[in-house]
């Protein structure tokens, strides 16, 4: 037993695990690069195929077209990082926009915006309470409220669009500031704030912890219920904000406005590298995800591809994104 080389025993396992660590760190890097790579591929291909695509005017249009999805998807990112899902964001956008437009018509712009945001917050709180306090599954709760909020919007308006959106509202939520459309600025401001919250505050740390291991978070004294409820409130408020931009852009509030937005928001989040299992995700990734989807649609439109095919392409990109993620992890 004594002839064993005792001196190298400590060294080798440590070196081995250090190699494992390096490998893991490089996976995270590859994942991040993968998102950027997808972005470069989509934009590169369209730049080659169509000389208008890379023009400043068109890129501005892409950013504008991606902004509603980006705003809503940023809320979705928090939800998904916490290992939840919110299918009701599109319906909240629709309900908030018709309530805002109605109140605006009688009581002025400020009251309308406040009412719309309140709708988003209350709707998010309903989701949050059912999920965090009652303990129902997020998928089921928000599937229910997807129908509930949409139905409420239809009942509230009797199915009719509301016209006569005040011009100041339109210039705030769909105007320009210098050369930049205000929705793009809104999306960037929202992204900066939420990114800060996620990475630099105790609330953000708690979101990531809950998504990573909810039971452990509870045993660490994290107020799991309160944090989760607040996440859905934020998602609701950002959905309302997305609804405002929609109304401002088309000049009318439609009770069916925002239909299907939940899928775009989930798609942008997942393409952006947020794990559907929770615990992992970034706001920056989601922004790029929204720009990939927006660029894809814009590019295909420029090339006169039928809108039906655009849906097919979006679907393929989502599956491709998840596939790449899986392959990267398997290579580990």
């Amino acid at each position, binding site marked *: 037993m004594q002839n064993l080389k005792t001196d190298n025993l400590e060294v080798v396992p440590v070196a081995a*695990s250090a190699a494992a660590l390096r490998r893991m760190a490089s996976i995270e890097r590859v994942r991040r690069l993968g998102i950027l790579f997808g972005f470069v591929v989509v934009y590169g291909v369209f730049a080659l195929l169509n000389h208008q695509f890379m023009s400043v005017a068109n890129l501005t249009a892409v950013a504008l077209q991606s902004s509603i999805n980006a705003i809503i998807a940023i809320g979705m990112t928090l939800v998904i990082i916490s290992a939840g899902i919110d299918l009701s964001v599109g319906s909240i956008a629709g309900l908030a926009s018709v309530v805002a437009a109605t109140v605006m018509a009688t009581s002025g712009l400020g009251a309308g915006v406040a009412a719309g945001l309140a709708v988003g917050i209350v709707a998010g709180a309903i989701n949050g309470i059912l999920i965090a306090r009652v303990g129902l599954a997020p998928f089921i709760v928000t599937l229910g409220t997807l129908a509930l909020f949409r139905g409420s919007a239809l009942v509230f308006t009797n199915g009719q669009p509301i016209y006569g959106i005040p011009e100041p509202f339109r210039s705030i939520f769909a105007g320009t500031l210098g050369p930049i459309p205000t929705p793009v600025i809104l999306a960037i401001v929202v992204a900066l704030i939420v990114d800060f919250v996620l990475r*630099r505050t105790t*609330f953000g740390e708690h979101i990531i912890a809950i998504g990573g*291991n909810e039971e452990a978070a509870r045993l660490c004294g994290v107020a799991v219920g309160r944090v989760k409820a607040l996440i859905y409130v934020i998602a609701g408020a950002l959905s309302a904000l997305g609804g405002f931009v929609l109304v401002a852009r088309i000049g009318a509030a439609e009770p069916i406005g925002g239909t299907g937005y939940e899928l775009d928001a989930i798609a942008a989040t997942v393409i952006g590298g947020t794990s559907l299992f929770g615990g992992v995700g970034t706001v920056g990734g989601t922004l790029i995800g929204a720009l990939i989807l927006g660029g894809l649609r814009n590019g295909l439109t420029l090339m006169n591809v039928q809108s039906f095919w655009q849906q097919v392409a979006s679907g393929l990109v989502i599956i491709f994104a998840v596939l790449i993620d899986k392959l990267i992890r398997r290579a580990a």
Partner: protein
Amino acid sequence: MTKPALALERLSKSYPGVQALRDVDFAIASGEIHALLGENGAGKSTLLNIVSGAVRPDAGRIVLDGAALDLHSPLEARKAGIALIHQELALVPHMSAAANIYLGREVTRGGVTLDRAAMERRAQDLIDRLQVEIDVRRPVRSLSMAQRQCVEIARALLYRARVLALDEPTSSLTNRECDALFVILRALRTEGVAIIYVSHRLEEVALIADRATVMRDGRVVGTVTVAQTSRAELVTMMVGRDLSELAPAAYRPPAAVALRVEHLTSAARLVDISFEAYRGQVLGIAGLVGSGRTELLRAIFGADPIDRGTIAVNGKPFTGRTIRGAIDRNIGLVPEDRKGQALFGRMSIRSNMTLVSLGRFARGGVIQAKPRQAEAQALVADLDLRPRDTARPVGLLSGGNQQKAIVGRWLSAKSDILLIDEPTRGVDVGAKAEIYRLIGRLTSRGAAVIMVSSDLPEILQISDRIAIMREGRIVKELERESASEATIMHYATGGV
């Protein structure tokens, strides 16, 4: 030794950056129980994975009954007569035991409909051969862990396994269930099955194994006859150094009462529990699995409700009990299920260690990165955590380092009443000694430690006082000098 049933010849396997196996030779005869020992990362899992067809070696041969095997999948291995039983059992919970045994090999009528009656009959025969009482029609989720293991073994028998590999088979069994498993393994040995037995528990190896092969750093250190080898020799082979740390810690006299529990009763099986825990001491809680030990820790921590009784911390009643309240009273819980209840695997070491104490490093909810990083670095140095880089995801650390990080979390929270559940489960021998030292340091700084453990040598080595639980009650308290494995088992199993 007779002709080997299974021989591995010069097996090598490397993963990117890691040489998992180097020129490993290993042979087992039929009718032999052969223990495979080694610290975490020694190469045992890779070896098992190669034998069971899940992983292909880079070089070397697998020889079964004199013929070289080229295994491409676990199914091929199973058909060849090699079965691996994983630590985490691979059964479908809501299907019956019989259906699980026959999964993938269903008995049918004309290849169309399932012949459940035939499967149940034959499955029952296999189970009966193990001389255990399991109704094979019952769903697996209603069976105990030990019974589930028997179902897996029966499945191996169905494939006429001549080589049976078990990975940490006793990690979730009670002592009595372990004994029953050993009876089964000995019976299989008599039938000529070659059994590869992987375990961290050297006491078990001494009981059950004929020979033992020790691995370290991807190589075979040596193969010994168990009956002629002392436990200390095995440990030295495994870690490559003498572990004098395994001597009992010096007795520490009690200081102030940190925790007083009186008449604690809860729906989660606690019955009229009263005890005191002192600063400067480790109170060991022994007892069989299911005796209420974990429930007791959770109740004290405010994680589970209680029906009756009082808890006083530092002489003041702890009312309105919540987890937050417990943390505010400087109580910390290191749960048994590290992965499921303590670890944030993809978060950094830093985040894992400062989650509870985060409020201290935040102003208006905004985390102050510098003081937090300083805290994390100080803890990493204090605990001798490897690696030192606090940004690494904690899930990549070894079990022992993960456990140290979890203890570090409560150090950061300034906990001085530490509830620790099975502190060294799934931790290798070297890391165990470090965790014991850490517990010793905590008590010398005036902390009260309450430690639940199923590992009796551990209880005897670490505790100053020992409380023994049975069926939700504390049936006996002993000072360490008056306790032995025999006395503890006596009270834990119903003696008076």
